[in-house]
Structures are given as C-alpha cells and as structure tokens.
C-alpha cells in the first residue's frame, strides 16, 4: 500500500479513487481500513518528499467506455442460444468451447425454469462424443425443438458426416465453432480462424453451409440467436464461427439488446390444419420458388405429412431414388435455396459512406479491432483505406461490389493458408492476385502493429512492380 501511495503521487492518481478501493476491499474487515489509508499516505508523503511529483506522464479520468460492457464471448453465445429459443444443448467437452454450454446452462437455470413447478424447461446432454452431440441436436430439431451443439476444430472434424445429412435432408441445426489452433490437436489454448474452409464445405459431396462471424460479445449473442431463425427458415445447418480469443477472453462490447416483441421465425412448418388444406404435399416440393420446401413435425397429423427423412437421394416426395433427373433437380433446388439465403443474409459492415480510396481491407471476427486500429496507423502515414467486415457466408453481393471498387484488397485473417481469401476468390470469381493476404497464425491474437507493418511492406513491394493485379 505504501508503494501504491508513492505511485499515486508520481502519476497524480485521484486520491479518492484509492480510498474508495480500500473501503470496498476491506469492507468485511473495517479495522484494516484506517491502517491501509495510513500506509497509503506514508507512500504519498515519501514520494512527494523525494521526487518531483507528479511525473510528466499522468493518469487521468476519461469516459471512453461509455455504456460498454465487459463479457466473455462464450457467455454471450450461451445467452444468445437462450434468447434464440434453444431448449436442447448436446455437447462433448473441448477447449475453448466448453463455456458456451456452461453459459447456456447457467442462464437456462435462471431463465428457463417453470415458474409454478420449478421444472427445467431445457435439456443439456453431455454426449459420448461429438458425433453423438450433433446427432442429438439434429434429432431435436427434426422433432420441432431448437437444439444446438458447441465444439472446436477436432469436434467439427467429427461432425462432418452429420452436417452433410442435415444439409441434404434439410434439417435445421445450429453449431457453434469456437476455433483454436489446428491442425489435429494443434494448440488447444491458442486462437486461430482456421476452420473456415472446413466449416463452409463440411462433409463429402457437394455441400455448403451458412456461417456467421461475430466480432464481439454483443454479436456472439445476436448471431447465435439469429442462427436459430436462419436454421429454421432455411432448414439447414448454421455455424456460428467464433474463436478462442473472443470466446474465452473478456472483451469490451456494446451492451446486449433484445427486442421483446421479436417473434421466432420457425420457417415453413405445416400445422395439422394447414395439412388438411394442402392438396398434395411433398416434403421437398419447391412450392414458392425460393428453394425452401415445407416441412412437418412428427406427431402433427394422423394421416398427412409423414415421410421418411433420409440422407440418401430422394425425390420431391421424400421417396428414395437414384434417378438422375430427380437427383439433379434436388441438388439444383438446394442451389436455389442458397441464392435465397445470399439475398437475405445479414450484410457485411462497411465502414465508409462511399468507397473513396484505391486500397480496401477486408476482415472478420476477432481481427476487427486490430484491423481498425491498423487503419488509423496507416492513415497517420497518409495511407488511406476503405474497410469491409464480413459477417456471414454465403457472401452477399455487396462484398463483390466492394472488391470491384478497389484496386487492391487486403484480406486479413488468422490462419496460414488464407482460407477466407480462398473462399472469396472461389465464390465471387475474383482474380486471386487482387486479394492480398495479411496472415497471422502464431496462435496469438493478431495485432494492429502486425497488420500495419505487413500492409506497409506489401505496398512497398508493389511499388517496384507496375501493378498488384
């Protein structure tokens, strides 16, 4: 305490702040308060007597935080699942995703208890492995509940086969992937964004999945809640892509907000009454032309709407078929659905009113704050940039517009193989050389200095060449 007192004199720290801390710290042992205050004062007096106080660097009260909160991403994700209507969570423990289900259970024990009976209105199952975890989540969704699972890289690898089933049989399911350092067991306690390629195209055959990329706890909360609506609306897996840094560390975040008027979007589910009015129902009939068929929940109607859900090839009436025409038709309809998703999915965040500069930078997830800071550093040197933050996959049209509007686009990501760049190049058919990678994959969160330095170097290197493209 003597040391703290001396330091406070040197840095000109407000005296009352320290006194308040002592009071709260020793609230249970009030006898110690005057003793500590005395020690504090001894330090102050010593410093003042022996040094020129205060030093040129000072501690000053500021209000830059405003109403921001501090929270771990995984807790916000768990809470997002509650607000998103999840009642079933199945999981297998793995760092760094464990606290997602922990958060879900904690909040569910407060928010999802029957007021009259005290009974739990949710289920958490610690499955025998990740295959079972996602199988349970899929079974719950198939039966009308909102179920999810949370995992990290090794678990996602195991879940591939089931993800393909959910894609092809069109069963909603939500998965949270808290990414860690790969490959294999990799660096379980380090961060990376290196599951993107696998998540986007998980499972054999032609498959693709909806991904969301939150960048702070507020978005962990919002994207997870939204994921359940998307999964139901589009009848497909939705993967929330966070990472160890966002999930397990405390982050400053805007407060979580929820509109109590909001209704869940359960998508196209037919009730018994609706089934009675439908002349010819087919589980995989594209009635509305948006690629999204109507589904039924088991137990709904005594004689209508039953079907055999299967991952084998099926016709519009869910009957097994290996007929080429039927197969191509159903695969093409899944693509129509994919286009629908593309048009409706949340937009990227664009950081300028209009594109003004020749350099654009693209980032997502936990790279966001370092990237924004790097933009400031570049600006100080006269290098001005436009920026776009990817929030979802499939990519909405505005991402291609952004890329087209710039001569050079830096894609910043936390993996070795430029996974996001690969998907951008492939899905948007842009020239690979137009996208220049800034990659950090040492397991530590990417820093503004690193981004700044790398962009600067890459720009210098291109001056000697006529063009980047």
């Amino acid at each position, binding site marked *: 305490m003597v040391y703290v007192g001396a330091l406070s004199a040197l840095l000109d720290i407000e005296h009352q702040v320290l006194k308040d801390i002592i009071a709260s710290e020793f609230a249970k042992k009030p006898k110690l308060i005057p003793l500590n205050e005395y020690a504090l004062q001894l330090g102050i007096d010593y410093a003042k007597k022996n040094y020129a106080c205060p030093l040129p660097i000072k501690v000053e009260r500021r209000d830059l935080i405003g109403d921001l909160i501090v929270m771990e991403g995984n807790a916000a994700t768990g809470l997002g699942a509650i607000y998103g209507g999840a*009642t*079933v969570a*199945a999981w297998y423990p793995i760092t760094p995703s464990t606290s997602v289900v922990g958060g879900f259970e904690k909040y569910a024990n407060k928010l999802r208890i029957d007021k009259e009976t005290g009974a*739990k*209105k*949710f*289920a958490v*199952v610690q*499955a*025998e*492995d990740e*295959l*079972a*975890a*996602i*199988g*349970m*989540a*899929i*079974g*719950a*969704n*198939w*039966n*009308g*509940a909102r*179920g999810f699972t949370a995992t990290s890289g090794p678990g996602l690898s195991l879940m591939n*086969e*089931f993800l393909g*089933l959910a894609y092809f049989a069109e069963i909603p399911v939500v998965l949270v992937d808290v990414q860690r350092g790969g490959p294999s067991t990799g660096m379980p306690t380090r961060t990376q964004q290196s599951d993107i390629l696998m998540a986007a195209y998980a499972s054999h055959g032609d498959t693709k999945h909806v991904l969301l990329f939150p960048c702070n706890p507020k978005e962990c909360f919002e994207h997870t809640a939204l994921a359940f609506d998307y999964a139901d609306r589009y009848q497909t897996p939705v993967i929330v892509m966070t990472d160890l840094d966002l999930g397990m560390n405390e982050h400053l975040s805007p407060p979580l907000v929820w509109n109590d008027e909001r209704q869940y979007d359960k998508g196209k589910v037919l009730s018994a009454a609706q089934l009675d009015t439908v002349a010819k129902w087919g589980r995989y009939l594209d009635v509305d032309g948006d690629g999204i068929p109507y589904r*039924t*929940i*088991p*137990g*709904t*109607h*005594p*004689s209508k709407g*039953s*079907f*055999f*859900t*299967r*991952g*084998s090839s099926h016709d519009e009436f869910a*009957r*097994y078929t290996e007929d080429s025409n039927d197969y191509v038709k159903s695969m093409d309809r899944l693509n129509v659905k994919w286009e629908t998703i593309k048009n409706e999915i949340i937009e990227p965040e664009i950081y300028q009113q209009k594109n003004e500069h020749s350099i654009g930078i693209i980032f997502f997830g936990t790279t966001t704050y370092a990237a924004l800071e790097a933009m400031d550093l570049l600006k100080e040197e006269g290098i001005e940039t436009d920026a776009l933050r990817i929030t979802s996959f499939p990519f909405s049209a505005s991402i291609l517009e952004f890329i087209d509007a710039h001569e050079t686009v830096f894609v910043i990501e936390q993996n070795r193989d430029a996974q996001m760049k690969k998907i951008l190049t492939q899905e948007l058919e842009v020239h690979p050389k137009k996208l220049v990678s800034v990659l950090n994959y040492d397991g530590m969160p990417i820093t503004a200095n690193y981004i700044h330095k790398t962009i600067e170097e890459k720009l210098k290197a291109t001056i000697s060449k006529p063009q980047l493209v």
Partner: protein
Amino acid sequence: MTYIKPKFHHPELPTNRLGYTKKEYEGVISTLCAGCGHDSISAAIVQSCFEMNIEPHKVAKMSGIGCSSKTPAYFLSNSHGFNSVHGRMPSVATGANLANCDLLYLGVSGDGDSASIGMGQLVHAIRRNLNITYIVMNNGCYGLTKGQDSATADAGSINKTGIANEFNAIDLCGLALELGATFVARSFSGDKSQLIPLIKAAMSHKGFALIDVVSPCVTFNNNTGSTKSYDYVREHMEAVGTFDYAPYEKKSQLIMTAK
C-alpha cells in the same frame, strides 16, 4: 414400377379399437431380397402396432444405415421416420426424445450398424436408459455391402465365401444386461408367435428395450455352416426360444424433456 401399395381395400377388413385396419400400419412394398428375415420383422411390427391400437402418427421410426435400416419405409407409412447415418441412430433418437417425449420411439438397426460402427452410441443410449424399443435385425453379416462378417458372427460360422470366422461374437443381449438395460430379449424373425408378443412387450416398456432378432440374410449368409441361416436357427430353436427375463427395475428417467 411403383412401390406404393394400392390404397383400395376390402371394406370388411377387421379394424382395431381406433378403427384402423392393419393396412394402415403398413408401408410401401419392400425392395429387400425375397425371403430376407428383415421383411418378417417388418410384418411383426405392423401386426404388433395394429394389435396394440397404436396411433401411427404418434410413433417415430428411427434407423441407421443398412438393409435393416431401410425397413422403416416398409411399415407404418403414417409415422415419421428418420434414416440417419451409419451407426448413429441412437443419438438422433435421443435428441428427438428430448424434443418430444410423448412419441413412441421405435428404432431398427443392423448388427453392423449396432455392434460395430454404432457400438458407442448403442452403449450410451442403454446407459442413459433412453425410452425406445430398439430392434437389431441380426444376420451376422453386412447385407447392404455384400455380406462381410459382422461382429455378431459366431466364431467358426462359415460365410458365403466358405471362410470360417475367427473371432468371438459380440453378444448384444449379454452386453445390454451388463449395462443394466431394463428390457432385453432375443428372438428369431421366423418365429412370429414369439416375436410379436416380444415387440408388444418392448413397446409397452418405459425405458430402453432391446430385442436382438436373428434375421437371416438369404443372399449372403444362409449357407450351410452359417450359424445365422434359417436351417441352423430352426434346428437350434430351443436356444433362441429360451430368452432370459430381466426383472424391471425402476430407473429414474434421466432424459429430460424440452418443448
């Protein structure tokens, strides 16, 4: 060719208490090999549900992958079914159960689906005392992939290629008893007088009910020397017929329900 059976039927077919005829418990025409044991089990399921006055839409049919796992298409057309992935039906059934515990869960699987790739999930479903009737259509081989030995093939049993199996069989009933399953039975697809009462008992049972049904594969494992052939099983009927009775011990229903 259509696999949909004609809806037309005789107006005087007997009905059950719910007013349904047996036809209303049937499925589409089977595409399995003529004589496959699995078809007899499907017929026994139809008969059991009819006799038990079960509302078809209150049943959820769950299966994995294999000839056996295709059978839910061949019974209870008015029930939802789920042909999941190989060996993973127990997890899907568990999740479905968590969403709605009021349905009657009927799982069908094969010996490959349950005793090899799906062993982990089967064991854990038993451990959790999942409320399901779980029928293993046990032919000692992988029918769908052309007859390789399965883990339930008896040591010394000769398969169609003439080779005797070297390994000891996994006895699913023994395993289930060891795990504390609350209903365990073994039967034979060719003995409906035994199989139907067993299915009815299993469906009345709350908790995990396993019926291991020896169900010969006529195409790949019905040869002389196979211990899962019709001839062999009929000759050894007594052994099959004397199943043990596992006393029902009330276990807490570990599975919670969420709606």
